[in-house]
């Protein structure tokens, strides 16, 4: 004999749930299950990366060294700090400190956008350097595909050098192909990650607006928690991506 008690009807309670607690438990479980699917999703790309890195270790090292490690490192710190501010948002929400909640959310948002901004410049740089796979891909535009050395003259590619003879062409063609595979995986993995960040940013904006409208309280703050889970997950994916993509064989170069 259960009828929903209208007097305790929280505005955020959806009608098919019995009470807020059930709703909270349900959405919490859903987010974890969703994150499991995300792991499988990224996992496929990570698998492809692992396989090709072990097949073409030299080409991958050379390609990796062409990435901007400073930007990547900077972005890593940005994300780690953003996870901290996100955790503070969750705490503030649980303590019903709406003002602090909004501040921390906005900070997280700013940091997330910083990450995306840096990513934009990184991608732009790759685009200008002919490092985007496809018809215009040309690692030799800026780098020697065999040694990875950066070329001083922008327009002097290794394939144009006559000194190595016809063998260099065959050799560097192979290397170029493998390097292109690296960059395909680089763009696929960081692109997918950036896409998730953009969605995260959207979720943060939604949270800020909701917080401003006073939607969150001690009883009801699970959206903040759930977005927090999502944000931390995206951060962790980057923690894996960064060393795998940016730091191959870096110790050789000091």
């Amino acid at each position, binding site marked *: 004999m259960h009828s929903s008690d209208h007097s305790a009807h929280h505005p955020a309670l959806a009608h098919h749930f019995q009470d807020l607690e059930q709703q909270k438990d349900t959405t919490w479980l859903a987010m974890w299950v969703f994150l499991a699917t995300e792991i499988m999703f990224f996992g496929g790309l990570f698998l492809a990366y692992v396989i090709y890195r072990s*097949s*073409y270790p*030299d080409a991958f090292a050379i390609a990796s060294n062409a990435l901007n490690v400073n930007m990547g490192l900077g972005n890593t710190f940005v994300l780690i700090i953003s996870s901290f501010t996100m955790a503070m948002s969750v705490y503030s929400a649980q303590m019903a400190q709406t003002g602090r909640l909004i501040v921390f959310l906005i900070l997280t948002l700013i940091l997330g956008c910083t990450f995306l901004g840096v990513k934009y410049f990184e991608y732009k740089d790759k685009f200008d350097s002919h490092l985007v796979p496809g018809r215009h891909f040309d690692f030799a535009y800026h780098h020697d595909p065999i040694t990875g050395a950066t070329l001083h003259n922008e327009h002097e590619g290794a394939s144009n050098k006559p000194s190595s*003879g016809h*063998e*260099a062409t*065959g050799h560097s*063609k*192979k290397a170029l192909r493998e390097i292109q595979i690296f960059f395909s995986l680089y763009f696929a993995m960081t692109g997918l990650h950036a896409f998730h960040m953009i969605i995260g940013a959207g979720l943060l904006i939604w949270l800020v607006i909701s917080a401003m409208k006073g939607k969150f309280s001690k009883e009801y703050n699970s959206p903040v928690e759930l977005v927090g889970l999502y944000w931390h997950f995206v951060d962790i994916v980057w923690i894996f991506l960064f060393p795998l993509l940016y730091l191959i064989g870096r110790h050789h170069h000091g």
Partner: protein
Amino acid sequence: MQSSTVQFLPEQASSFALQVDLLYLYLTVVSAFFTVLIVGIIIFFAIKYRRRSDADRPPMTVANLLLEITWIVVPLALSFVMFIWGAAIFFKMASPPKEAIDVYVTGKQWMWKMQHINGHREINELHVPVGKPVRLTMTSEDVLHSFFIPAFRIKADVVPGSYSKMWFEATKPGKYHLFCAEYCGTKHSGMIGSIIVMEQREYDAWLGNTKDSSLAEAGQKLFKTMGCVSCHSVDSATKGPNLEGIYGKQVRLQDGNTVIADERYLRESLLLPNSKLTEGFAANMPSYQGLMTEEQILQLISYMRTLKPVTTNTSNKTVVSTLAPAPQATPAAKAEATPTPKAVATPTATESKPSGSPLKSEPAK
């Protein structure tokens, strides 16, 4: 094969066929037994326990752990037999005898090209002798294909970028279907041919009747024209590893691993020379990717298979060949082993019978 009768089995024309058919029989009998049993029980229950009145109230279901365990254990046991039997046949299929005749197959949309060791080429047809094992080494020039001979009960995928192998021993002269069994585009259903099994004498006659130069001869020419000779000979300035006895040799790599120099390794060395660099050598070899067709690669490899080691201390390490018995430490063959056409044309050429240099002309049969 008449088109009016319906057969259940293809002809049994290889040493595998009977075994596979017997396994089929076992599987069919077991399955038929269980199908009849369970369907029979269902029908029996349906009749015996049909509803007589709407007031029927059957008793509580009683658990029966013993029954449940039985019908888990018995199928498991029967499955295990299926597994073992299937695995045994599979093992045999994966173990070509050492004395197998080699034939090289290239699949491309939408035809099959066969090359016998002596150079005799065929398109969409493969002549083989009866009663002798034949080993096919296959690759594709474009997309996936699969070489399927129903009468022999054997198939193997043909993969671009690598070699796959398959062997059989035909047991009955005749003409048998060859099908491509991996979808490959427009004329996939047209990528068919015949396997023609002949008596040994007829086969030898057929085989010798060719104007094509042997694979190894063609390979020898390529060895010069492609520039291999400039590094892989005794007196070259930039040294590459000595290729005598290379085929089947255990090669020590720069990273400490060892590999067997089989067709895959040799092909990879041509296309990706620095991926498995031999220990003690610099990464100087250029890549031949895009500069050679698959057929030319096969010819070079055939040639390299004829290069036998001169003495045991010529090479870097002890010559240990796992694909062929270790050659005797006989003097004889020169550094550049030049095979005579006839010798290599021997259909039953083994890698090296320990009888001195196999490059001594054995009488062509």
